């Protein structure tokens, strides 16, 4: 132990320092410094002024060559120089090592001040004993304010929490002061110091910081979390026997065959009648003959009559809307119009459907390139509309206008000389404007344009 009583009295500070450097590598210097401070704090462990002086020197020597402000133990020196009780009381202080550091004599202080500000070789050549006995009380008041400022700056960068720790060691000698011999025993001191410095988690490294009380949150509380097991009767879901086996499929077969043909081309009158009769006999057969919405356009084009009958039979199906939407979106033709027309007269069609269909017809009329076909289609639309209005399928009272679409229509109406039908139209309603509403597109048939000059 370098700081033992004997060695500190006899050896020079320089040789003590070099011994320290030999014993500990650079990485351990911080730990060594902490240990020295601990010994300094516990006055009983380092009783002699020589030891104290040597300790301070070593502490300084550990970080020799670096600027004072960077020395991790700079605060210690400041505190040693300005003992808290001498400075103003009650102010907010840097607390890291305060309170328990020993009070230094004037000689020691002067030595320290010199050490910090202006270390000289000669100073370190002496033994601690020599320094203590020498009269160095002459150069007082060394200016250390610059170092203090640098330190304060560096400390303020640290968060408050890391500045708030205190060591966990509390001296317990006061209560027994009378009973125990006043002579400090070297061996016990050594043991105590070892107990404090050595170990898995040495006490010297521990510190107490004010700690928050962190409450554990309550267990989440809720209702109906556990699984209530209900009987699900899994044995009731069994594989199913196909009871339609060999039952009545022979007619269905023929119907299916005819239907498949009907998608591809017109059936003969006889075939049509046969198919319709079979459908009539078995109301469920319509679902079995292989008609899907995607196949409907083919059927409409090839066999509109069958398509009408089939659709009428499918009216109760929940899929009828799918068939409708296919019908609305298919290419406009005489046949499709015929089918829709028949449907409107037989069943209640959703009004949106009718409106959508009309608007589709109109846009087809507008976009078609072939002039002849256009004329034909427009005429068809007019007949169709006339029929719708006559049957009160659509309500011409509703007047909503959109300008862009109507003129073209009107013009093409004129061109195709379909006045007669339009005339009839105008007679049905006394309104000046006939407008037909649909969901997306409004169009208007302008009265003035309809009546030819």
């Amino acid at each position, binding site marked *: 132990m370098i700081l033992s009583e004997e060695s500190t009295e006899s050896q020079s500070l320089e040789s003590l320092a070099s011994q320290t450097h030999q014993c500990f590598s650079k990485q351990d210097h911080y730990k060594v410094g902490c240990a020295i401070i601990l010994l300094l704090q516990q006055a009983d462990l380092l009783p002699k002024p020589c030891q104290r002086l040597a300790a301070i020197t070593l502490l300084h020597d550990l970080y020799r060559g670096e600027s004072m402000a960077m020395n991790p133990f700079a605060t210690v020196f400041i505190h040693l120089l300005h003992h808290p009780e001498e400075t103003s009381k009650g102010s907010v202080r840097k607390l890291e090592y305060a309170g328990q550091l020993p009070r230094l004599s004037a000689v020691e202080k002067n030595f320290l001040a010199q050490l910090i500000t202006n270390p000289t070789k000669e100073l370190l050549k002496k033994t601690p004993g020599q320094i203590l006995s020498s009269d160095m009380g002459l150069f007082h008041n060394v200016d250390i304010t610059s170092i203090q400022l640098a330190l304060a700056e560096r400390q303020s960068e640290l968060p408050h929490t890391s500045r708030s720790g205190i060591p966990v060691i509390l001296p317990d000698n006061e209560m027994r002061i009378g009973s125990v011999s006043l002579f400090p025993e070297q061996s016990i001191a050594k043991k105590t110091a070892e107990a404090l410095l050595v170990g898995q988690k040495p006490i010297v490294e521990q510190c107490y910081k004010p700690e928050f009380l962190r409450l554990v949150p309550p267990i989440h509380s809720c209702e109906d979390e556990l699984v209530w097991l209900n009987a699900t009767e899994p044995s009731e879901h069994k594989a*199913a026997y196909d009871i339609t086996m060999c039952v009545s499929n022979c007619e269905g077969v023929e119907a299916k065959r005819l239907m498949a043909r009907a998608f591809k081309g017109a059936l003969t009158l006889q075939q049509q009648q046969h198919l319709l009769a079979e459908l009539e006999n078995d109301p469920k057969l319509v679902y079995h003959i292989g008609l899907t919405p995607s196949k409907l356009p083919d059927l409409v084009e090839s066999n509109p009559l069958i398509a009408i009958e089939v659709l009428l039979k499918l009216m109760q199906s929940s899929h009828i809307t799918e068939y409708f939407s296919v019908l609305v979106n298919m290419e406009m033709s005489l046949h499709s119009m015929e089918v829709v027309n028949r449907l409107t007269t037989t069943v209640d069609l959703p009004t949106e459907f009718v409106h959508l269909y009309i608007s589709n017809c109109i846009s087809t009329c507008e976009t078609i390139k072939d002039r002849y076909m256009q004329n034909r289609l427009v005429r068809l639309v007019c007949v169709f509309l006339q029929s719708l209005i006559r049957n009160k399928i659509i309500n011409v009272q509703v007047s909503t206008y959109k300008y862009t679409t109507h003129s073209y229509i009107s013009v093409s109406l004129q061109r195709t000389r379909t006045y007669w039908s339009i005339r009839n139209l105008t007679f049905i309603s006394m309104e000046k404007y006939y407008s037909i509403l649909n969901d997306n597109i409004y169009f208007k048939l302008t009265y003035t344009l309809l009546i030819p000059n």
Partner: protein
Amino acid sequence: MVNQISKMAEKEAETEKAKSEAPAQPVISDQEKDWAQAALTEFNRNNYSSCLQHLVKLEAARPQDTKVAHNKAIVEYYKSDLKKTDQFRKNMNFVCGQAHVNIEDVDSLEDVEHCVIYYNQAVLLYHLKQYSTALKIMHKIFSFIEPMEESLAHCVCLLLLELQLCMHQPDKTLALVTYVENQFVVSTDSVISSEKEIKSLEKEHKEMKPVTGDAATDTFRLKLLQYRARCYLMMHALKACKREIKNLITAGGPTLTSVLLKGNLEYQRGNYRKAMKVINSIPQSSLSFKDLGESAPVFYYSDMGCIHHYMGKPQLACYYLQKALQENEMATKSLPKAEQAEPYSGRPLYTLGSNKSYELMYNLGVTLLHARCPIKAFDCLTEAVQVYHMNPRLWLRLAECCVMAHKAENESDFNIHMRRKDLVQGVVGTGTHRKIILTPQLSKDTKYSCEGQSFAIPVATVEFACLCLRNALLLLPDSQPEDPVSLPAPHSTDVPAITPSPSSHYVYAAPSNPLGPHEVASLRCSVLALSAYVALCLGDYMVALDHAQMLLVQPTLSGVHRMLGHLYAAEALVLLDKISEAIEHLNPEHVKELSLMFPSSEKDMDRDKMDIGTEQHKPLRAWFPNTLPTARAVIQYNLAVAFAIRGELDKAGETLKQVWMSKGQGCDVPIHVIMLALYIELQLDFMKTGFMRCYGGIFHVFCYTWSYTG
């Protein structure tokens, strides 16, 4: 590649051809019709051998008829008591090949004739618990429900309903039940053309009595009633459910199913004693586990466990649940063991999915957690989470286990008598060199770990809790709906449930019932609070602050969570060196009440207050601090800590003094107070004089501890 495509195209063309040719089979002769009729009769009489004889004759006469081949496979399967499942699958694959049906691709289903094949596939998948695949098939089949032959249609409806309930979709199921009732039960001929009519039908439904119909329709109707009741239970629509169950019991008498449903109803209403009485009346059944595929004792013990859990008796609940697990194991063991080559054979089909161990594990885990056995609970829940990893609440429970294993509760910190010895960790040296070593830390819940081990391995640590909580947060929906929450009106739909309702308020939480909006909100609060706590324990202050702040802005915040939000936010802020912000959070006025649950508005909707049990609102586990003064003392103590850390020792001392003074009846203070007092004194260097005078009381305790330890 090109080759492959052309081959595929060829194949497709072939299939197409085959399909169009398929109907062109020889016309069915009268003899064949007779055989078919006889086979059906024998099948219905469960005489599978003689049925098979007829089918063999038929097969010889009509080798190309897929329906004959199909039925032969079915009858052979029935003849084996539904045990030769693997063989059945092979046969069915063969039938599929013959019928040019691709069983894997449900979208290719176009012909109503093939529905039965797909249905049988879905039945298999259902029993193998592959619910989502089965459900997909059933949705497709359901689009052919109208042309379908009626008895098959009934089966299809029931299986679809069951699957939807298995997937915890009560709102969709309810819509489907209504649709099915209108289609098949009320009157098959009635035309649905307008919504109005449906509504009136709905009204009729309530007064509907079993007037007409044969036995088959009656059972079908009963089944629908059961499904309706299960939907309502799942949605906590208890009033509607009560009516349904009453109908069910009047019409069908007490059966295992209806008794359990009734027990479930009483249990959900909080009438635990009544629920217990109800389940004790489970009728004795002659049918065994092997016949039913489910075991009544498992149900009984498990449900008893649930009841006791919510009666606040976790130990008893654990006992019942363990009993249920035993019964479950016994039932499973009673079945012959499956062989390696044919894993699904040897046992009847409907017992394949009969193992309830995951549900039971979940129940037991939650109960053990409440019984304060976090490690055991953790083990159970890690079992359950392998199957139910989409359940946010289950992840929270896992995290709670970890945290409980880490720090069991708060109360011991307030037991000064017990904990004072923790102030001093030891004494070093003797004589003049004697030193007292104080504790560096009173709380043991901070853990900055830098071990390199992966925390994805489930161990009950705080790190794993952190992972669990992240999962829980991800599984909760982002934002709560702004509009006032309402249950989907149970009777207002005419659409068959093919199109799912776009916005469901319910959050999936299998194996529990789906979480209602209120529970989702309260779950989110709990997850956030625990996340903040765990982040603080791990030293992750930014994250802790985020969670705490998020917690504080939740609309349905309970008193306890509000207080915790402030405490956690303050601690995180101090550690982030924002002490003034922290001090704002540490105002004791922030705590106004200490409720554990946000008052629910939802309950008024459906529960008539008259018959709700009294145990309803009491949380299962009391929480400490349980008095307002104690809670405020905690906040004030933390305020003192914040002052002390900022170096304002006078303020800290003053605050701490207030805390110490408030100690007394109904107000406990934590042990930390003494340590902080000591700290302030040491810092102020008043060791000899001021300390004794100001904090005489505390110092006394300290001295006591001192000599006690020394």
